[in-house]
Each structure stands twice: as C-alpha cells, then as structure tokens.
C-alpha cells in the first residue's frame, strides 16, 4: 500500500469513530483492573451484610463532604479529558494539552483532599487492623488512590506529547488511550463513593 493510500484509508476510518477508542491493549488492561475492583466491591458487600451495624456506625464517621468534592473533581477531570480528545480530533494540539493539564489539576485536587482525609484517620490512630470496616475502607480507597496517580502519570505523558504537537487528527490514539484509562479511574470512584460513603 502506498503512503497516499494509507492516509486515504485513515481518513475514511475517521468518518466512523473507531470502537473501542484508543489502543486495544488498554482495554484489556481496563477490563482486568475492573475485575480487581469488582472482586473487592463484592467482598465488601458480602462482609457488610454480616456486620451491618458495625459498617453503618463507622461509615457515619467518614467525611462525606470531602468525598463529594472528590466526586466532582473526578467528574470534572473526565469532562476536561473529553474536551482534550475533541481538541485532538480537530488537530488543536495546544488546546488538547491545556484541557489535559486541567484534568491533571483536578486529579491533584483529588489527591490533596483524599490525603487530608487519610491524615485525619492517621491522627485518630486508625489503621488497617482497627476493624473490618476500616480495613475495607482504607484498602479500597488507597488502591483507588494509587490508580488516580497512575491515571495522572498517563495524562501528563499525553499532555506533554500533545503540547509538542505529537498528535494529528489522523493519529491521536494516545489521547484516546489515556482518556479511556482515566474514565475507568473515574468510573470506579463512582461505584466506590456510594458503596463506601453513602449506602445505608
């Protein structure tokens, strides 16, 4: 195939958005990650059924306002990431970089808020062995916390490349790949937040 024909084909490919967006490998990774979280959530739910009083009591001690702020932070980040993808599709690399950096900023806000919560627990002498609820709460949220960090690292890589003009309307798989992973991080929190902080 000549280079000309290849470009033609890619243009035609553009008319119909690819499914799934981004690299297929990231989707395999996302599915595997979701499986880990699903197992954790299921374990939480089954254990909670056996200790409802304990779970309710300690759940009430969590800072729900902080969690709400964090939910909004992640949702906003997802919105920014989406705007970044749109910008990349339109060939506006700089704009894509700016939206992606904004998403990284929201991720950082999440980390700050969550860290202040952890500091509060640490100060109160709470750890993994305090009780079953805290074991789950700390494990689940911290595992997710690490995913936010990984998501941010990926977004920073995307933002840097976008800023250098590394993406084109024809080839911006990297932006979609990063965005897909970030949405997974967000999605997991959207389950985690009601499950751990709110559910009665």
């Amino acid at each position, binding site marked *: 195939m000549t280079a000309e024909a290849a470009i033609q084909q890619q243009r035609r490919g553009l008319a119909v958005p690819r499914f799934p967006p981004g690299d297929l*490998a990231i989707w395999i990774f996302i599915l*595997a*990650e979701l499986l*880990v979280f699903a197992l954790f959530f299921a374990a939480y739910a089954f254990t909670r059924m056996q200790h409802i009083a304990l779970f309710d009591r300690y759940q009430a001690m969590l800072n729900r306002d902080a969690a709400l702020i964090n939910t909004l932070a992640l949702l906003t980040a997802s919105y920014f990431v989406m705007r970044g993808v749109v910008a990349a599709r339109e060939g506006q690399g700089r704009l894509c970089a700016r939206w992606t950096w904004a998403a990284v900023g929201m991720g950082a806000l999440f980390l700050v808020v969550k860290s202040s919560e952890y500091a509060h627990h640490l100060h109160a002498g709470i750890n993994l*062995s305090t009780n079953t609820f805290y074991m*789950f709460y700390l*494990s689940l949220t911290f595992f997710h916390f690490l995913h936010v960090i990984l998501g941010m690292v990926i977004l920073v890589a995307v933002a840097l490349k976008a800023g250098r003009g590394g993406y084109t309307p024809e080839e911006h798989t990297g932006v979609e790949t990063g965005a897909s992973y970030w949405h997974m991080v967000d999605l997991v929190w959207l389950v985690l937040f009601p499950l751990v902080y709110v559910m009665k």
Partner: protein
Amino acid sequence: MQYKSQAVAKPYFIAAIGLFVGQILFGLIIGMQYVVGDFLFPEIPFNVARMVHTNLLIVWLLFGFMGAAYYLVPEESERELVSPGLAILMFWVFLIAGALTVLGYLLVPYSGLAEMTGNSVLPTMGREFLEQPTITKAGIVVVALAFLYNVGLTILKGRKTVVSLVLLIGLAGLAVLFLFSFYNPDNLAKDKFYWWWVVHLWVEGVWELILGSILAFVLIKTTGVDREVIEKWLYVIIAMTLITGIIGTGHHYYWIGTPDYWQWWGSIFSALEPIPFFMMTVFAFNMVNRRRRNHPNKAAVLWALGTAVMAFLGAGVWGFLHTLAPVNYYTHGSQITAAHGHMAFYGAYVMIVLTMISYAMPMLRGRSAANSEASQVLEMWSFWLMTVSMVFITLFLTGAGILQTYLQRYSSDPLPFMVVQEKISLFYWMREVAGLMFLIGLVVYVASFFVGSRQPEATAVVEGSAA
C-alpha cells in the same frame, strides 16, 4: 547466530540440562521414599534428597535464565556482550560452587555443613529452599552481580528494546530480592514474612517478567509478527503480573502471625494471578496464528505454546484452587500444594527454559535455524512424554491432597497424619510411576541432541505465498 559472544550461552544450557537430570533422579528417590520409607536409608535421608531436588531445580533454572539472557541480549542489543570472558568465568564459579554445595548436602550432616561453612558468623541456613550455606549464598550474589553487569551494560550500550528491558528488570529484581535470604530475624513470623519476599516474589513476580520476555523473544523470532504488537502484549502482561503478584504475596500470610487484613488482600489479589497467565496463553496462540512465516524449528514453537498453556494451568488454575483464605484454611501445606508446585514450576519455568534452549541450541551448534527433522521429532516426543507425565503427577497429587484434606482436616472424625498417609499411598505409587515416565521423556529429550546431527536441517513447510 548473529553475534559471536552469544556462544557463551551454550555451556550454561548444557549445565542446566545436566542438573535437570540430577533433579529428576532425586525426585524419583523422594517419590519412592514416600511409599518405601527406608529406601536408600541411611545413605540418603528424605530431607536431604528433598533439599537436593528443590535446590537443583532452582540452580538449573538460574543456569537456564542466564544462558537465555546471554543468547537473547546481544541479538536484541545488536552488539556483542561486554565481556564474554567474564560470562565463562562466572559459569565455572557457579557450577563449582553449586556442585560443592550439593556434595556438602549429600556427604556431610547438615549441621556439620553449617559448622564447616561458618554459618554462625551470619546464620542464614536451615530455611526451606534457602538451605544453601551462607558462603554459597554470597557466591550466588557475586555471580548475579557479575552477570547483571555484563548483561546490563550490553543492553545500555546497545539498542534498547522492550524485551531486553523487561528481561533486565526481571533479572535485577531476582538479584535484589535474593538479598532477603541474608535477613534472618529471630522472630519466626518476621522470618517467614521476608522469606516469602525471596520465594514468592521470585516465582510470582520477577521470574514472570523473565518468562514473559523470553517468550516474547522466541515468538518474535519464530512467527515474524511485528515487534510492536508483541511488545504491547508484553507490557499489559507484566503490568497485570505486578499488580496481582506483589500484593498476592498475602496468600502466604494467612496463618503466620500477620494482621488479619492479609487474608483479604491475599485472597483478592492472588485470585487474580491467573489473569496474566491467561493473557500469556491468548498472546502465544494469537501470535502463532498470525505468523508471517513458518519457522523450520517446529519444536521450539511447540515448547513456546506448551509453556503458555501449562503455566496457565499449573500456576494459574492450580494456584487458584487453594489460594482463597477459607479454602487454604483446610488445604494449607497438603499435597494440593505439592501438586501446584510441580505443575507451576514445570509449566512456567522449566518449559520456558526448554523453549529457549530449543530455539537457540541449533544455532549454537552451527545450524542456521533448526535441527534435522529426526532430531525435532524426538524432541517433540520428549515434550509430550514429559508434559503428559507432569499432568498425571499433578492429578495424582491433587487426588492425594483432596483425600488428605478431607480425611485429616475436614471430616467429622479426623484421622491422624500417618494413618491418612497410609490410606492415600496408592496415589503416591501412581505418582512415582508417572515420575518414571517423566524420566523416560527426559532421556528422550537428551537423546534428541545426539540423533540426526548429521542429517540436513529441517525446512519450513511453505504455506501459500509465505516464505
């Protein structure tokens, strides 16, 4: 062979196969001692033979990994090894130290060996799999450092590929984690805690990186599939390996005096350890199906596919069988563990080393790509004999383990250990027979190196327009 210095891999591979034979012979001895308690008594006691069986396994796999690295790294880096001489020197150091250690196990009472080798200065002996005298351990560190220097510098000076970097991370991790074998706290819970940092984080962590990179290398070479495709898979596989494997260490922390949360962490994360192995199976078959050419070395491709399948079964499925804390509460340390150990080690690590040997040895012996048809046929026979035997060894041990768990720990009227052992001895006999079949397979394997050496090389079957 593209680079002259790749030739240093050859003695490593030969030593690996030699020690493999020794390992299997001692396996047969202990298998017999399971049912005939005084077999070879008092010359070779069970505990000594078992130590030789497991230590030889580790040592020959290390020989295999090093040989694989010495063959793979120059080709990936597109340059000669930094120091082939150092590689040969370290080969002899490692071989002689290994031989002396095994002789020490066999000829001197263990406590005497500890005294002779000055264990009291820095006591590290007496722990399962880490029985080596402290000076042997120090020797292993020296060999590992020289090896890492040689391989690492070659990679850094040459072309850097995902395959060689993953391999280097795996090998460096192997060396670093081995240092925990020198940490031997008095507190038994702590001792066990860090002991697993060597044992578990080797086989369910960094060794998997070594396995993944060698498999990727052989698949790139034999299928002609684009490097980018294979590297992408490798990334995803090692990411999953590390996510599940590192915290998965917790499945060893259920009953050793660690905090309760390890039962959750260990169960959840290790339950997912089969995923990277499953991905490896899909990966291997996918790449072979998408092959751009038929490689004349059919035996190597068979080993590669076999590794993927058997590693998934042995490490993945048989591991999952008893990894959840509520199940492990009953099965811990039973024959189920032995079943898992056998198939996992064979499927993942024995087979990947044999894959690499199968791929590289023809070139190391002067062929352009593959052995003769006759030699390959014999090698493939040995593949099936050993693999099927291992499946039976595993099934018999699993049967023994299920019965043992039930009779000794689960039934309403539990029986004493020795009474149960007597009742399940039929399984041990059948395991020993399967072990003999394995030995026959191994003999056929060794024979395949001597058969058909003068016959012309096998050629690839041409499919359509592929060449």
